[in-house]
């Protein structure tokens, strides 16, 4: 079954056609990257899938539920993490997770919170106010909050925008772990390397339509055949920065894969 099924979706704001017939299928259990520059319509598509916006025409199904006709079921089966960490800075990390668990009417909110804190490496910071967290910790908590109640689909809208390289790699690892556990991940990004690192399939959204879709290997075949060239490869600044500031295994793993 496909986690997301979209057919000729249209959406305009006043005179501006943001989505002009989007078709999309996302297989369950995969990481799917939606690439596009700013203003391509990524966030609009995410808002329609999460029932915050209504489409003008076309059909969108999430986990088998129609976003227009069954918004309550859709909202119960997915969770969304926006571009900015949507956490409560006055509450502690644990309280943030418990808040979401209780709003989702799950029993044993405390236990769920403990499990996610452990999984996202936040146990030591659990009792601290989120206002004391670093950007990367906040984003991990943010993603952890999205996972409360084990939604079938997690939508991450530009999850690493504004993060430093280390936090970015930590976030990437969290996303990989998610997919390994069977959750479908829809990821929007404007960073090409992010899609290359993470995604099973990639769609390129440009001026309101999907202009290309496939695995990375399939997309590569669109380019001329590779030629063998001799290039002296200098270490990139990112390589240097990462080797200087962080010798942790986590980082090396992220950089190699």
């Amino acid at each position, binding site marked *: 079954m496909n986690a997301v099924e979209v057919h000729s979706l249209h959406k305009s704001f006043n005179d501006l056609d943001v989505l002009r017939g989007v078709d999309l299928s996302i297989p369950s259990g995969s990481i799917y990257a939606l690439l596009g520059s700013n203003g391509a319509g990524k966030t609009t598509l995410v808002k329609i899938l999460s029932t915050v916006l209504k489409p003008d025409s076309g059909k969108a199904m999430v986990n088998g539920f129609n976003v227009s006709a069954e918004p309550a079921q859709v*909202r119960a089966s997915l969770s969304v993490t*926006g571009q900015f960490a949507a956490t409560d800075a006055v509450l502690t990390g644990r309280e943030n997770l418990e808040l979401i668990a209780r709003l*989702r009417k799950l029993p044993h909110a405390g236990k769920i919170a403990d499990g996610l804190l452990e999984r996202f490496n936040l146990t030591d910071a659990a009792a601290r106010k989120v206002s004391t967290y670093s950007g990367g910790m906040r984003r991990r908590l943010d993603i952890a909050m999205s996972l409360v109640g084990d939604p079938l689909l997690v939508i991450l809208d530009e999850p690493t925008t504004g993060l430093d390289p280390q936090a970015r790699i930590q976030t990437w690892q969290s996303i990989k772990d998610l997919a390994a556990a069977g959750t479908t991940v829809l990821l929007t990004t404007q960073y090409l390397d992010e899609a290359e690192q993470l995604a099973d399939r990639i769609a390129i959204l440009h001026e309101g339509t999907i202009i290309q879709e496939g695995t990375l290997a399939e997309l590569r075949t669109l380019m001329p055949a590779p030629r063998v060239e001799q290039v002296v490869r200098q270490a990139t600044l990112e390589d240097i920065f990462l080797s200087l500031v962080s010798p942790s295994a986590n980082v090396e793993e992220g950089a190699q894969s």
Partner: protein
Amino acid sequence: MSIAALQETRILTGRSLRHILRSPDTIITTAVTPIAMMLLFVFVFGGALQSTGSEPYVNYLLPGILLITIASGVAYTSYRLFLDLSDGLIPRLQTMPISRSSILWGHVLTSLAANAASLLIVVAVAFLCGFRSHASFLAWLAVAGILAVTTLSLTWIAVVAGLSAKSVDGASAFSYPLIFLPFISSAFVPTQSMPGPVAWFAQNQPVTAIVDSIRSLLDGQSAGGSIWIALAWLVGLMGVAWVLSLVIYRKKIGA
């Protein structure tokens, strides 16, 4: 409201009450300005003002001070609501299977609790300044009721301000005219002493009706017709602000 919506409202009210418990200074700062005004009027201007009969001036003054307390207290509601909108917690809650109005109600109920705490502090200081009341228990209950309804209607106005503000400063600026309004009413001096047009405005604006009815009740008298005028104003304002805030809220979150 369904049972689920009530439960969600309770959870979200608990969350914002926790915000207040972690920064109790918001309750203190709400009470400080009205208390300073009360001290100023009782101990500096009070002697020069024509007092009404043998009662101490603080008895005359207190109802207006209580309204100023509420007006400055509700500014925190629009501030907190603005922060929830701008730091993304509300957008997250919008994508969850919970009732949409529970978020607003959580803020409104929290405002009720926080203002009650500030009002208690102000009343305690008033007693220290010589305030005495002849009111029965029932009359005190009626006063509490009027103050609760006043808090509710000013809070819904604060919700409108918090939802439509473009900046943190804008979110709380709406409360300045509310704080100023009691000065052009019977809160500090009787309206008869004012020149014609000002007196007309003062007699016909809601603060005078609210202040007069609280003052009569605290004095152990019947509030007469002013309590109904006050309630009509408050319920009317609350209704308009409530509908307006729901409209703005829907528009804001794009649903």
